[in-house]
Each structure stands twice: as structure tokens, then as C-alpha cells.
């Protein structure tokens, strides 16, 4: 897909996030909105082969959404590819559905790892990366972490391990939207200097605007060196919905009817 097509895809998915979020009153919408471009680039930009991800073949690129609470965007992408049924989407977080507020790999097709508890996804991804090396396969592993998630000690255990084993088949993307559940990340626990941290743990590091598909694509297309990669992706939490952007009280909120009418109008839904 061309960049403009990916951008269109991102816009459509944003609208879909808000629509499904409103109709089901479920999901972490602002967390999903911040990583739409990252997810779209991975899934539609040629980095994940969605058809193969449905096979039991172990030799395929893999993706772990470590910040599992953003999974509504992953569900919608898998739905767009026809892997998750339309009728499941509107049963999000309902007793008769398979989709929860965190992804479950045993229930939901196309999900590579059950996440939700923070600080697990990178280690799981490391397992995939070590497995690929051991099996002498050339595929690549991608994972997206939240910035708040980087407060978890296990993230840094994992980072040490990935650096030590020179897992150059692993790309870690930090969806750095500067907010966590209750406040700005900087007010809770400072994680800066974030790029330096990943660099000194043995990663090749990049810093980009994570809401710009062009920049994401450019970095992901670069040939890998002998280190794992960490991409600090600066993003905006709630990106694309003005009422939600950078508002931490939207972490767990869903729009009410009045807000929905406004959002609908603004986004042209």
C-alpha cells in the first residue's frame, strides 16, 4: 500500500474505534488512538503477513501487542482482514462474544499472545525471537509497548536480555504518548532519557513521530544491524479526536451520546 492509502486506512480505523467504542461502551479508546499509525504500518505496510499469521507455520513475522489494553485497534484490523467476524466486533466485552478489553490468543484468531498485564509482551517477543534464531528462521518480531509500561521492572530485564543476545530480529516500538492511566508519565515516574536507556541496553534506537506513517515506514524498512531495534515513537494519546487528545481522564472513558454526536460531526462519521 502507498503512504496515502495507509493514511486513509488509519483515518477509517480511527472512526471505527470511536464508533465501536461508543456503541459497545468498551475499550481503551485513547490508548488505541495513539498507536493507529504504528499498527496500520505494521499490518498494511508489508511488515506482517496476515495470511500467514493464521497458519500454524512457525516461520512468519510475529507481532505482540504488549500494551494489550489498546487491542480494539488490533481487533478492527483483524476484522478488516476478515479474520474476526463483523458480528463479534459489536459483542466487544459482552458475555456472548470472544473479544475482551485485553486480547486472548486462545480465543481470538490472529492474536499471537495474551497480554493485558503490563511488562510481559517484550519477554514473550524475546521468546519468539530466540525461537526464530534457534530454528534458523529469518522472520522478524515486532512488539508495541506503552510508555507507562516502561515503569515495569520486567521490561528492563527483557531489554538486558535482548541486548545481550543481540536479537536483531526484534523491533520494540514504544508508543510514547506521554500519558498513563492517571496522569502524565513524567508526573508518575520519569522514564527519560528514554532513547538513551534503550541505547545503553544494547539497542539500535530511533526517535520518530509515531503518528506519521512515512516516518514509521522509513525506519522499519531500514536494514537491521547486529542489535535489536527500539523505536521511540512520539505519539498523541487520543490522536485524531480533539476532545480526547492529551486528556488523561479519557484513559478509561467512553463517549456519551452528546459527546458522540460531536465526535461524529467532527470526524465526518
Amino acid at each position: 500500500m502507498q503512504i496515502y492509502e495507509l493514511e486513509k486506512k488509519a483515518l477509517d480505523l480511527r472512526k471505527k474505534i470511536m464508533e465501536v467504542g461508543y456503541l459497545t461502551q468498551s475499550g481503551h479508546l485513547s490508548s488505541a488512538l495513539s498507536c493507529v499509525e504504528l499498527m496500520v504500518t505494521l499490518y498494511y505496510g508489508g511488515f506482517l503477513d496476515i495470511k500467514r499469521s493464521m497458519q500454524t507455520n512457525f516461520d512468519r513475522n510475529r507481532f505482540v501487542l504488549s500494551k494489550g489494553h489498546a487491542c480494539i485497534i488490533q481487533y478492527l484490523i483483524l476484522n478488516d482482514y476478515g479474520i474476526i467476524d463483523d458480528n463479534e466486533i459489536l459483542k466487544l466485552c459482552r458475555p456472548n462474544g470472544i473479544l475482551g478489553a485485553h486480547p486472548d490468543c486462545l480465543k481470538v484468531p490472529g492474536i499471537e499472545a495474551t497480554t493485558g498485564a503490563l511488562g510481559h509482551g517484550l519477554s514473550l517477543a524475546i521468546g519468539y525471537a530466540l525461537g526464530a534464531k534457534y530454528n534458523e528462521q529469518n522472520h522478524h518480531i515486532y512488539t508495541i509497548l506503552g510508555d507507562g509500561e516502561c515503569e515495569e521492572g520486567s521490561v528492563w530485564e527483557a531489554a538486558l536480555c535482548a541486548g545481550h543476545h543481540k536479537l536483531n530480529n526484534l523491533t520494540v516500538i514504544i508508543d510514547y504518548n506521554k500519558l498513563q492511566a492517571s496522569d502524565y508519565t513524567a508526573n508518575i515516574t520519569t522514564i527519560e532519557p528514554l532513547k538513551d536507556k534503550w541505547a545503553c541496553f544494547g539497542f539500535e534506537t530511533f526517535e520518530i513521530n509515531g503518528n506519521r506513517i512515512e516516518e514509521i515506514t522509513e525506519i522499519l524498512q531500514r536494514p537491521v544491524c547486529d542489535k535489536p531495534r527500539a523505536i521511540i515513537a512520539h505519539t498523541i494519546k487520543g490522536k485524531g479526536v480533539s476532545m480526547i487528545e492529551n486528556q488523561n481522564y479519557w484513559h478509561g472513558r467512553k463517549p456519551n451520546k452528546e459527546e458522540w454526536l460531536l465526535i461524529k460531526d467532527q470526524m465526518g462519521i
Partner: protein
Amino acid sequence: MVNACLETLSELVAEDRKIVVLGSDAMNIRERFSPVNKRQYIEMGIAESNLIAAAAGMAACGIIPYVYAVSPFLVYRANEFIRDDVCLQKRNVKIIGYSAGMDYCTSGPTHHATEDIAMLRVLPDLTILSPGSVKEVREIIKNAAYMEGPVYIRLNRESNREIHPGEYQFEIGKAQLMREGNDLTVVTTGSITYDVLQAAEQAQKRNIEVRVLHMDTIKPLDTKTILKAAEETGKIITVEEHSIIGGLGSAVAEILAETNINARLVRMGLNDTFATGYGNHDEIKSMNGLAVEDILRKMLE
């Protein structure tokens, strides 16, 4: 028992390329992996949470990972990782926790695994195996490879006392009847089974015939054999190098409570306390009420 475990692991990796051992800074296992098979050992450092989750990831690549590390650090520190990444996702990971119970007898409670059964027994889909001798270690380590799903193996470190003079056959979920007797039953697990058998022998000299059931599988528990023993002998003593809360004693209490069997139950183990003292393994068991004499006394009561 650790040596038997390491030998068996070396044999397993030689036979099956799918098997990979992940370790956490232990000299004994690092020495075991020679230039020939060292690809099948991955050193993961002193970072148990990452170790467990990475093993879960590897299992999703068609690999059968064996995790080998000190029990308390695995079970207590990495408990959420065992729960979320191994059990919840039904990953085919074999977790060997060495230094079960008070094996690290001079190291103090930080190094004891005296609540591990309690903390793992509650986890769905996890099989818990607890070998009591060298022969059992060999069979159990080998069998675990081809049991589908998560397995925890509670490995005693140094004890080389054999409890099976003859052949040992492992069958998952089936108690080992070590000794016949109809006066009372002892249900036990791990290397302390040897002490129980010694106590039972002494009890016999005083005309008390003790049935000894050794649980090489703690989960799934052989409830049928335990309940039959309760019915036939009327009294059960559980003996474990573990807290009496949540461990084998609790498991037996749970199954007894849901029947109409009128049997007395006495649980031996650590009674809501950390193990105290330093010494050799026998000494620390003695300091914590788990010497052969203590077990004998309970049998005679």
C-alpha cells in the same frame, strides 16, 4: 537428584532437537552443556520473570523449553509470569524448580521453597510433579517432555536416597503405594518420603502398620487412592517439606471434606511459619518438626 536431573536433560537434548534448556546462572547446568550440545542451552541470567515469559514465547515456536532455576526465585518472583504467560496461554513449558522445601538448608528462608505448591496448585492447567528419588527424577524429567502443556517439577537438590529398591514406573496422577498397612496412612511427597518410610519401619516394630502413599504427582492428585486409604485406615497424616497451608496437606483436607468418610487428618509441615535455623538438611528438618522421630511420634499418637 540434581545430578540425575542434569544427566537426564543432557540425554533428552541429545535425542530431541526440539528440547532447549533455559537457565539462570547455575554452574552445574552450564558445565553439563558441552560444545556439542551447547546450542540447546540458553543462559538467561538472574532475571526470572523474563526467563519464564521468554520460555513461553519459545514454546510457541515449536520448541519444548525446560526452565531450570532455583524454586523460590521462580515461583515467588515470577509467579504472575507463570500464571499469565505459561498457564493462561497453555504454553508447553517445563519448569524445573530446584531446591524444593528447605534444601538450601544453610541459606535461610529467602532460599526455601516452602510455599511453592500452595502458590502453584491454584493455577489452572499446570501439572505439578514432585519426585522423591533419583529414579523418579529420571523418569519424570523424561516424561515431562512429551506431556502436552505446562509442567512444574519440584526438584530436591542433594538427596540421593532411593525409595524404590525395584523398578519405578511413573504414571501421571497415580499415587505410588510405597508400603501396605491398615492402621493409618501417610500421604507424602518429595525427598521426605524416605524419612516417612524409615518412620513407618520403626512403627512396624511397635505393631503399627502404616500405609505410605507417595505423591509423585501433586496435581492432578490421585484422589481415588487417597480416599480409599482414608476409608480403609481411618487416619491420614500428611507429611511435606512445605507449609501445611495450601500444600499437600490442604489438598488432602479439601478432598476429604467433600466426602462422608469419617477419617482423622493430621497435617505435618510448617505451621504458618517460615523455616528456622541453619544446618544440614536433616538438621533443619529436625529444627522444624520434620525429623524421622517427629513423624514416628505422630504415627504412634
